[in-house]
């Protein structure tokens, strides 16, 4: 299973975050929100200077490219727990 973090941050900002927090998995920079728009999870104007950013969301994609689990929170303080994600991954097998 490969976790991928995606946000509107630049590659440099994400690299700083990884260094600070010790994350070793892949972070992608979607500065123009192209993927965020394609996944229909734009939070319009919620970023700095009214920038469009992503609402928090998690998608589990299997090896054939099909989505097998989705988590869309209704409160951005409340995220999927590691247990929920591991459960979803377990069910993939």
């Amino acid at each position, binding site marked *: 299973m490969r976790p991928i973090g995606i946000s509107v941050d630049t590659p440099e900002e994400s690299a700083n975050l990884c260094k600070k927090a010790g994350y070793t998995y892949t972070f992608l920079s979607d500065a123009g929100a192209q993927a965020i728009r394609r996944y229909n999870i734009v939070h319009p104007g919620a970023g700095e200077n009214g920038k469009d*950013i992503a609402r928090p969301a998690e998608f589990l994609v299997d090896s054939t490219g099909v989505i097998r689990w989705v988590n869309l929170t209704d409160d951005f303080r409340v995220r999927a727990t590691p247990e929920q994600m591991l459960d979803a991954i377990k069910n993939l097998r």
Partner: protein
Amino acid sequence: MDSNRHWNWRIWVGFLLPWVGIASYVFVFVRYPITRNVPWVPFLFFLVALILLIAGLRRAFGQPSAYRGKIAGPILAVLSVALMAFFAFGTLYATRQLPASKGAPKVGDKAPDFSLPDTHGKTLTLAELLTTPTGSAAKPPKGVLLIFYRGYW
């Protein structure tokens, strides 16, 4: 007469507690889902603060010859209530104002492809992420978990 009146500590402690509760949330309890998702720790502080403020005000106005706080009491009580209301609004309402995202892909849908740079500036597509072995593994991953987050803008 002034010197004989007691210091109305309930009002001042009642004023201090909401700040302590909010600070405890911002610096400590926001890190753990069990104390973050429902911010019950600061709300507990608020409850004690309200009880102390009411008790303090009752002393200030009910026994003005024995207790101080007829001027400071109402001012601090209003400030405290405003602070608690602001925090409650922020955590119970403001962070829930997310778009419905009804058009987001659903279970069973094909995941939309994308092409984005990683932290080394290397551009990766979803198809590549699904077919490229990672680390020391010889086989491609069983899948990928896309975690969209708001960013540290």
